[in-house]
């Protein structure tokens, strides 16, 4: 479904990604781990299209996305949340969701349900009902994270990439988000790529895990396989 071929990206002298090869299957739950600076967010930016001047190709359902700018990729069904939340601060929670529903979702995909109803459904799923009509400045940390995910879900994507959605959350809050993502994948068969540092979340969520280090993929397998790979240990803990 999502094919990444020989993806490389340099920033001046710094190599962020080097020859990345990756295939993601429809409905898959993929975990993406790696130390800070290993290129995870750069990889997402290349996939989602915020970065367009990379080398290599990104294919989605057979179509080469390279010439497509980010909003067009969103319309094709690729959606992502942001590591540092970027809410639309002049709008309420609900209005935040209406933006992708109005702009990214094709009319046929709405299946006759109004965008307001769709937004309310997502808000309900994420238990944000109380704050639905509040401006984003009144949200707590975890509510912000939920909003990021809700907004990404409002794109009605085929692939959802969550970028460290759980950073800084308490243990029970992590469980909350985990449950939401797993349920989403199980009910709608949306492919979910989860970038996380919280290992227990990645391990329990992912069917497959990929580890990046210094811009290269150093491990690719089931969670149990990856966690005992020496290269992964080295990347995180040093020699």
């Amino acid at each position, binding site marked *: 479904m999502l094919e990444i071929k020989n993806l490389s990206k340099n920033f001046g002298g710094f190599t962020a990604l080097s020859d990345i090869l990756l295939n993601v299957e429809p409905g898959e739950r993929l975990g993406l781990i790696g130390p800070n600076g290993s290129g995870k967010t750069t990889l997402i930016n290349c996939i989602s299209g915020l970065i367009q001047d990379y080398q290599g190709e990104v294919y989605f359902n057979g179509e080469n996305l390279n010439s497509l700018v980010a909003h067009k990729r969103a319309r094709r069904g690729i959606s992502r949340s942001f590591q540092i939340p970027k809410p639309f601060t002049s709008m309420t929670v609900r209005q935040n969701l209406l933006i992708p529903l109005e*702009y990214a979702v094709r009319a046929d995909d709405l299946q006759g349900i109004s965008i307001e109803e769709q937004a309310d459904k997502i808000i309900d799923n994420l238990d944000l009902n109380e704050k639905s009509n509040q401006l984003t400045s009144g949200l707590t940390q975890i509510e912000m994270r939920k909003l990021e995910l809700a907004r990404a879900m409002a794109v009605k994507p085929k692939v959802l990439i969550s970028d460290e959605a759980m950073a800084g959350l308490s243990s029970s809050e992590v469980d909350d988000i985990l449950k939401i993502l797993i349920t989403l994948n199980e009910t709608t068969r949306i492919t979910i790529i989860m970038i996380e540092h919280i290992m227990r979340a990645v391990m329990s969520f992912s069917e497959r895990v990929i580890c990046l280090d210094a811009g290269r993929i150093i491990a690719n397998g089931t969670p149990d396989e990856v966690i005992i790979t020496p290269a992964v240990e080295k990347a995180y803990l040093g020699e």
Partner: protein
Amino acid sequence: MSRNRFYIIIGALLVLSYLATHFVDNQYYFFAGFAILQLMVMALAWNILGGYVGYVNFGSAAFFGLGAYSAIVALNLFDASLFAQIITGGCFAALIGFGTGYLTLRLRGVYFAIATLALLVVSETLIVNWEFVGGAAGTYVLPKKNPTILGVLVVGKQNALFDNYKELLFFLMCLIALATIIICSLVENSKLGRGLAALRDSEEAAESMGVPTLRLKLFATTLSASIMGVTGGIFPYYMTFIDPLSAFNLDISVNALAMPLIGGTATWLGPVLGAVVLGTLQQIATVTISSEVNLLIVGLFLVAFVIFAPSGFLGLIEKYWKRGD
């Protein structure tokens, strides 16, 4: 307010402005009124890009001046009517706005701002060196005597719609101002307006959520520029004389920027408030003290509001309203 009530009020204001030209004799009111309305339209136009999108335009005077001078070119080449001049001004400024946007909107907002300043200086220099439109010395415009539309005498001493050109142009300016308010209101309440707000709040998030940010930015820039060009287009006929110094004056830019920031950038009401309050203050100051003081007033208000009241008059009003609850 409901859409219907909104349009009824606009319509009533338009009728009122026409009646004013009939019943008010003191020409000074039309002069001051025109000046304030011009400020208002420029402020509304600036706010489309500045308030709705968050991109600063320092070169409003460029679009204004280019509008004025393209009207002059149309006049010199084709003996264009007032109406044609205004349209030309709007279209040419739109073209330049689109071009500038296309070249620089992919960069950070700061660079767009600097580029608009560059546009202002380059435009002024080009016009100063172009003899066809009078160069640095400027050029005169002679309004047509006894113009008619569909057989009706528009301007004349007897049985005409207007007694003189100043009154006609005042009325036209009212029309332009009200039309601009309608345009702004339509934008605000549309899918386009929501997209612009998202883009202003977080360009990256908006783009990732399907909002075609470059396209929207280009649209806002072009619309803003074209309205400024229309305002410029009417200027030569009104002043009957135009030169690069007055058409490309940086003062035009600072007023267009200051009034929305002082009045409030969220909706069309902000620029209107800013223009009415500040414009009136400026008129009073010019008459009672000097015209330099105008700029001081604008500068001080701008700095004060930007530091202490970032949401402008609208924000202050909202705050005190809420406190009353």
